[in-house]
């Protein structure tokens, strides 16, 4: 078991609603961005002298631009339905991690400066001045929210705390309190093209290496092209897919599917990143700028379709926002949705009989599926609401004979965040990530014990990294986490396997018997 100098929550039969422990996580804050990282994104380098007025001005500006913020600030009735729904609250017991309390950090200031009762009777309605302490409190607790939207499912008015968190971070960035992790990464996208800062030539090498791996394994030369003009498909995938484990096996799975279906595809070195951290920091301009890189790449490479790899928040941005941010995509093939998720593509091919899977290839595994929050509650797959739940499950079941779901109130729209989403996947927030993972780990542990589940599949780069990191804290193996397209790739029946390779495989199989 991994060690930590804070208490790791224990796992029990169910997730208990903890007794509140005020102040429990007030020490948790991510590193503040360096001046140059803020400047890259168009924000002031460090805390400005007139932060108070600037912050209030920005809040007023956002209240006029975002109906969500304006309406949500007003209509919460403090019914408390959301108070036990946040994984950070359940994992930390800090009352300020209750969604409504997180909103109240801002609502109290909103009332003080923008409403009549708050201006005249602050005590009565819980209004307060914006002080330096309040600003620091915002910085701390708006970075203890993974913008997962779970709270919004249960709120009678759909109040989405993620919207408030984004507004909070946007205000903080505008007074010079940007977050290091997210801002540095966005800067890398602008300068190099992806979150990891992996330059074009290195990317090309990596892809060649992966293609060789596939050839070693299957005997088939599967193309993994970069910047290939005139391809049918531009693949936009999180850069973690290019080399992180277990992501990379997913990428090899996509490549096999493309190959088997005869789809000519490419990645772009200019837009080699699906992730869009502009969402996390709540900044429209940066989100748009990142999305427009993908539009440009698709035009420059003269592709006809855009297909999106396994990534959660990026799929939300792609599915829900791209058309707004970077559309219209009328220059692409209208026979396919823009963008199309790799799971949709594989599922359609499977339905049409264009590819075949042999689930017995994964007989050594018992699978469950973790619904990533942004896919589950912020997007869709297929034509029907809920396709985002059914399609990945259909793929897993087609690729594997043994599948069980986790507890009903922890899957589909009720899914618990992995604990690392929303721009929190950074080492300086490790304690929060481990504690916030508890509800998900609890549900997983339950099926491990009851159904001998060996693997949990996911379709999000952040989830995959976060699981690999936090599973050991809960006495589970870090290699339990697996990409959906890793399973698909392993089960895929490749029709052009050379004969000598088939014999070789049979020999191997016989040797193992």
């Amino acid at each position, binding site marked *: 078991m991994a060690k930590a100098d804070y208490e790791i929550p224990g796992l029990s039969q169910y997730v208990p*609603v903890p*007794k*509140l422990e005020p102040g429990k996580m007030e020490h948790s804050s991510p590193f503040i961005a360096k001046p140059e990282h803020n400047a890259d994104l168009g924000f002031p380098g460090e805390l400005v002298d007139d932060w108070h007025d600037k912050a209030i001005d920005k809040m007023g500006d956002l*209240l*006029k*631009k*975002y*109906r*969500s913020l*304006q*309406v*949500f600030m*007003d*209509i919460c009735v*403090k*019914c*408390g*339905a*959301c*108070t036990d729904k946040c994984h950070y609250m359940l994992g930390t017991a800090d*009352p300020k991690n*209750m969604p409504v*309390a997180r909103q*109240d950090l801002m609502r109290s200031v909103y009332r003080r400066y923008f*409403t*009549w*009762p708050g201006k005249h009777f602050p005590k*009565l*309605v*819980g209004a307060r001045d914006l002080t330096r302490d309040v600003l620091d409190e915002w910085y701390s607790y708006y970075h203890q929210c993974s913008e997962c939207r779970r709270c*919004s*499912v*249960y*709120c*009678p*008015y*759909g109040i*989405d705390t993620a*919207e408030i968190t984004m507004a909070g971070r946007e205000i903080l960035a505008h007074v010079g309190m940007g977050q290091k992790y997210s801002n540095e990464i966005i800067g890398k996208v602008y300068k190099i093209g992806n979150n990891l800062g992996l330059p074009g030539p290195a990317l090309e090498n990596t892809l060649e290496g992966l293609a060789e791996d596939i050839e070693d394994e299957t005997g088939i030369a599967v193309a993994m092209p970069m910047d290939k003009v005139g391809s049918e498909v531009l693949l936009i995938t999180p850069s973690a897919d290019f080399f992180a484990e277990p992501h990379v096996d997913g990428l090899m799975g996509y490549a096999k599917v493309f190959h088997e279906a005869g789809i000519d595809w490419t990645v772009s070195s200019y837009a080699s990143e699906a992730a869009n951290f502009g969402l996390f920091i709540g900044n*429209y*301009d940066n989100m748009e*700028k990142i999305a*427009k890189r993908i539009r440009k790449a698709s035009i420059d490479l003269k592709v006809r379709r855009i297909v999106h790899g396994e990534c959660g928040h990026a799929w939300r941005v792609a*599915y*829900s*926002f791209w*058309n*707004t941010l970077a559309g219209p995509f009328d220059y692409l093939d209208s026979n396919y*949705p*823009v963008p199309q998720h790799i799971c949709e593509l594989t599922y359609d091919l499977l339905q049409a009989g264009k590819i075949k899977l042999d689930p017995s290839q994964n007989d050594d595994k018992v699978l469950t599926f973790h619904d990533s929050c942004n896919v*589950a*509650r*912020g*997007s*869709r797959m297929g*034509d*029907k*609401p809920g396709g*985002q739940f059914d399609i990945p499950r259909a793929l897993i079941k087609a690729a594997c004979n043994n599948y069980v779901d986790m507890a009903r109130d922890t899957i589909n*729209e009720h899914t618990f965040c992995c604990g690392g989403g929303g721009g929190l996947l950074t080492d300086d927030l490790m304690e929060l990530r481990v504690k916030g993972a508890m509800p998900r780990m609890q549900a997983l542990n339950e099926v491990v014990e009851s159904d001998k589940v060996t693997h949990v599949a996911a379709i999000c780069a952040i989830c995959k990294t976060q699981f690999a990191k936090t599973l050991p804290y809960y006495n589970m193996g870090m290699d339990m986490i697996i990409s959906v397209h890793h399973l698909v790739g392993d089960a895929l029946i490749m029709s052009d396997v050379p004969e000598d390779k088939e014999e070789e495989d049979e020999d191997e199989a016989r040797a193992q018997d």
Partner: protein
Amino acid sequence: MFITGIFAVGFYIATIILIVGVAMKVMRYARTPSPLVIPTTPAPTTRGGVVLRMAREVFVFESLFKGNIWTWVLGILFHYGMLIALLRHLRYFTDPVWGWVSLMQWMGIYAGFAMLAGLAGLFIRRVFVDRIRYISSPSDYLILALLFFIAFSGMMMKYVSHTDIIAVKEFIRGVMTFHWSPMPTDIPVLIHFTLVITLMIIFPISKMIHAPGMFFSPTRNMVDNPREKRHVVRWVEERSQSPDQ
């Protein structure tokens, strides 16, 4: 007549504040755009589907049902009790009384008790559940108390002090037609009217604005069709484009 004058003027002022206040809020919500498509999914893919989703939220508190069953039960008791009680009150405003309003008069006592029970339960929850106590400010308790005592004083008028209902109706009709007629002045009626005026005045500036406000909640009223239909709002179009685009 002095008391009648005070209350009549009070009702005029409260009505104006209520109507103008709610209209101003609703206009602000309507004017504020939602730049991105953000329904909480799975969400309906058509307008009609969204109307149904919203109807389920308004009439059966669908999300709250998923969220917390106790709050749901208490909330339903309180809101439906209040709705029926309010509809019953139409008989004081209309002459002759509409048929369906007369037909529902018998429900009054049940509705009154449902409302009181719901409000009392919500109040107790607020005091005793540590999470809800933590998020409550004085106004949250006071609003519950206000509504409780409106219902309570109303029931006192009917079942204890037997306030002269004919006179109440004449007073209300008088206020409506600007031909004032004297109102009864027993304690329950004075309390009832004072609290109702207070409620009307604070309605637009308190959390009670959730009633019209919830219809504007983008996570509930947006259609899940972003790939099919491009959604662009004015401020986005009017921004000066950044130079590298």
